[in-house]
């Protein structure tokens, strides 16, 4: 099924269209990350309806839209979003592979402090695995962590995402942060 031309259509309406027309996709990928040394590892599970949107293409906004909204929300004077149009009016991204969708989800739903420097330190703070690699019961859930034996390879960087969309996000973020500082 082809996705209608959705640029300018409210994202929420797009999600309704997807729920009515797309089969949910349960991925076996899981993202394990450590956000805080004093807390157990977190497990990120992709939503099946969201995954269907990502694989279909033409529905979800580029991930940098979420970053800009997060920057707005971090502003001390934030009351409510006034740039929601970024979600609705920005040209939606095309179809992703399952692996690309997981990567997108990391940039959207994992704290930036984790993925930005995930591979700096004695061991990675974030790994993508198959759900069969997780403990098969919830026993000692509050003691789960990423194994010291995990060695992660290099991955796509933020700069590569910028290049994909022809954007200079470093500059955009810098501007947003500076704006926050001015008003702080």
């Amino acid at each position: 099924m082809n996705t209608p031309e959705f640029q300018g259509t409210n994202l929420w309406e797009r999600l309704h269209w997807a729920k009515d027309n797309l089969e949910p996709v349960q991925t076996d990928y899981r993202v394990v990350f450590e956000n805080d040394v004093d807390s157990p590892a977190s497990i990120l599970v992709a939503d099946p309806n969201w995954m269907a949107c990502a694989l279909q293409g033409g529905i979800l906004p580029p991930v940098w839209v979420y970053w800009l909204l997060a920057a707005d929300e971090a502003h001390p004077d934030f009351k409510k979003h006034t740039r929601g149009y970024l979600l609705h009016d920005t040209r939606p991204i095309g179809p992703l592979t399952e692996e690309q969708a997981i990567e997108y989800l990391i940039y959207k739903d994992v704290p930036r402090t984790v993925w930005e420097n995930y591979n700096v330190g004695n061991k990675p703070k974030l790994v993508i695995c198959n759900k069969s690699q997780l403990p098969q019961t919830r026993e000692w859930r509050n003691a789960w962590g990423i194994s010291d034996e995990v060695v992660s390879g290099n991955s796509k960087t933020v700069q590569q995402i910028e290049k994909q969309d022809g954007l200079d996000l470093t500059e955009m973020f810098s501007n947003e942060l500076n704006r926050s500082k001015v008003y702080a």
Partner: protein
Amino acid sequence: MAGKIIADQIQSTAAGTVDTKYVVDGRKGFCNFNQGTSAITDSLNTSSLTDTSAGKGAINWTNAMGNANYTCTTGTGTVSTSAYVVSLNDDAAFVARTSSAWSFQTNYANASTSAIFDSNFSICAAYGDLA
């Protein structure tokens, strides 16, 4: 053939008139999930589930809410065969709620004990303004 009905108000013969925006303006997202297996069963406007620890986690929204002041109604399943009160609660006291993520914890309690636990059936629905 697909069609469209355009109306600003709906009128009842007994209860007067209501603006359609109050009729249409229902839930903005929901998530039915199983933390025992870390899986989402069904949803609307949910991008992912973050399972942070036993009985704790967050629902991440695809279309962010207007701000963090939205409402979530919740429900959760019982604990095996024991007589406990169970609830899925907002965890904003410990994990900041944002327009794009709702943090929760699932609790059970009776007269003598209480704990946070992984529920095999939890539901939440978000109401409020979207971004």
